[in-house]
């Protein structure tokens, strides 16, 4: 059987509780973004565009929608005969079974899956970020530097550095230390949670880590420190471009608004690096004689009779006469009644907004409103595990 040079493993198990009701029934990577996409479209499309045709998607929490969405992978051209996309939930073996206990444990438990492809390298991805990245270039760097592990990093503003995991590197780019959210950062290279490992090396560390009773079986907390401890060759690969963690309601809203500028940093119309997505087969959108539309992304199957200003509208949304949607994100199949006003809000899939309702706060810099079935809640900062 043919061998795969590099297999990607996408950690899609997170519940994403900071996204509140948006993730009540769906895993975070399945959250909507950009008028058409789900977050997971970005890493999956990056894989396809980077020539990586074998991707394991590790699921655990509410996988039904994710399973259904990924399907056979044909949306991303990942319906391959050998390889392609495989959804990997935890399973029971002859000696029992258990849920994934950490990111490293999730990979450990799928060693058998990886071994099928005899990969030289394994690319570890998370399903939480919006970005376009050529993993092949990173792999080339990883191979050229003969690293055991390569971690993709991003230069963040110095004032933000203490919110990230910071990689301290020497002059050759080799990682000499790793600080998780340092109070006094020595560097502004933040880890993007994208790793490439030599598979035989990683495998050995995963097996050893699994034996450690106090390990949390996490890449950031256990595996990377163990590599550092053993003086393994770890390189930092600097990524330049748009990258956004959309782990909170605010950041999800912001990332959507980022798309509306005339030349957004994240170009969705670039045919040379397409973001693939499941395409619902709906008629062309209809902009009525009464409509006003500006500064907007609107998807097929929509009907706009009212005003849309600086907003992102997913498929199947109907906006009736005299309604106003401003600075907002309207998720699929929302029905917005007459004379409704929506400001600075995210409206969850399938919501029905009765005539004359007002949602959100028009004040600039006011909090973003998240409206879901059970009513509206205001987004402030929550201290939650993800």
């Amino acid at each position, binding site marked *: 059987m043919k061998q795969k040079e590099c297999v990607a493993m996408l950690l899609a198990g997170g519940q994403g509780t900071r996204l509140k009701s948006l993730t009540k029934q769906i895993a975070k990577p399945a959250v909507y973004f950009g008028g058409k996409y789900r977050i997971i479209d970005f890493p999956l499309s990056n894989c396809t565009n980077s020539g990586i045709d074998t991707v394991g998607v590790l699921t655990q929490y509410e996988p039904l929608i994710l399973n259904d969405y990924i399907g056979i992978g044909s949306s991303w051209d990942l319906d391959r005969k050998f390889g392609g996309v495989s959804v990997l939930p935890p399973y029971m073996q002859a000696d029992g079974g258990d849920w994934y206990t950490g990111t490293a444990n999730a990979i450990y438990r799928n060693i058998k899956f990886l071994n099928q492809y005899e990969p030289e390298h394994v690319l570890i991805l998370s399903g939480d970020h919006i970005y376009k990245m050529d993993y092949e270039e990173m792999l080339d760097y990883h191979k050229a530097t003969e690293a055991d592990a390569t971690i993709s990093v991003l230069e963040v503003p110095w004032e933000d550095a203490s919110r990230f995991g910071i990689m301290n590197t020497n002059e050759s780019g080799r990682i000499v230390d790793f600080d998780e959210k340092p109070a006094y950062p020595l560097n502004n290279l933040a880890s993007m949670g994208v790793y490439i490992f030599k598979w035989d090396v990683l495998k050995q560390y995963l097996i050893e880590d699994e034996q450690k009773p106090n390990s949390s079986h996490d890449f950031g907390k256990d595996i990377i420190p163990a590599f550092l401890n053993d003086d393994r060759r770890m390189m930092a690969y600097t990524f330049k471009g748009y990258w956004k963690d959309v782990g909170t309601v605010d950041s999800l809203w912001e990332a959507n608004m980022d798309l509306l500028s005339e030349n957004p940093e994240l170009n969705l119309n670039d045919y040379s690096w397409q973001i693939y997505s499941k395409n619902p*087969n709906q*008629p*062309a*959108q209809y902009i009525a004689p009464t409509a*006003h539309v500006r500064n907007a992304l609107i998807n097929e199957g929509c009907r706009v009779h009212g005003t849309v200003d600086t907003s992102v509208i997913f498929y199947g949304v109907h906006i009736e006469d005299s309604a106003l949607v401003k600075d907002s994100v309207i998720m699929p199949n929302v029905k917005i009644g007459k004379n409704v006003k929506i400001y600075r809000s995210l409206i969850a899939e399938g919501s029905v907004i009765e005539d004359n309702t007002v949602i959100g706060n028009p004040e600039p810099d006011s909090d973003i409103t998240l409206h879901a079935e059970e009513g509206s809640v205001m987004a402030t900062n929550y201290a939650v595990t993800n």
Partner: protein
Amino acid sequence: MDRIAGIINLDHEQDLLDELTYFRCGAAVPFAGRYRMIDFAISNMANSRIESIAVFARRKYRSLMDHLEQGKAWDLDRRSGGLFILPPDWNDPTDMSRGDLQHFHNNMDFIQRARADYILVSGSQNICNINFQDVLQEHKEANADVTVIYKEVDELYPEHRLAHKLDIDEQNEVLDINNDQKSTKVYMDMYLIEKNFMNKLIEESIAHGHSHFFLEGIKGRLQEMRVHAYEYKGTHALVNSVESYFRNSRKLLNREEHDGLFKEDSPILTKVKNEAPAKYLQDSDVKNTLVANGCVVHGHVEDSILFRGVKIGKGAVIKNSIIMQRCEIEDNAVLENVIIDKDCKITGGRTFIGAPEKPYVLAKRKSM
């Protein structure tokens, strides 16, 4: 359940859409912002649980092949049954068949092998949303040999001149099929027939040297069989000329007409393209227009249809026009009453204005 197999017979459809049919057959002409004409016939069949469909194509069918793939968009890329494009590619010196009977004769295999009791034959020019299971029900209740489908039109337009009309009695039995220019009962080029009976008629037609199965084998023998008329009552458009294409396209800007064609429970499907949502910039102004994904609109658009990936520059003004896939209309261009085929480019500042009843048509890949 009684099963129906479908045949989409393009053999007698003339390529009357001028520039739009230079490089493709009429069935492959883009329509309604993201479809092709043939999508309606196929989607109606798929929605009516017709799982084996043959397309009889003779000329300029390459873009059809590209569009239909193996029927993937309609879930018809199946191991048993599915969608087949059957161009003429036979070579049998003993074959006596002529005209569209060549298709029927040489594709007897398809008809025989299809797991079906009935055959529904359709063209591609009658745009509608119809359920053929309802037709079958009525066909059986009427105890008919053949059921032909018609539309009672409110008003006669030039396109109806080319269509056949039905003369029917109060039991909806067909007395005559003719070209009565005053009749409003427009035959929609669709009929349902029992499979074995069809086989028999085909053989007899070939033996008689016929070249048009429906006209000679059915219409010509009307008195010998029981032909029932089924009235289709929904949104209908007959597209067989540039003028009817233009008028019927813009008819879809009417919400009721649009909803009559695009229904959630019997969706019109088409080949999937991956495009970003349509983008409207700060200074765009769009009204009464159908817009497909991938468009980027800076300018002013009204009473128009924009297909996928169209770019409208700043200050450009588009009225009463149909702009097909991936066209680029540069800043300050002015278009009115035009149809622009795929991949065209209109240079900044230029103006093209056609007449409402005779739009200006630009063939694909032109730069003006």
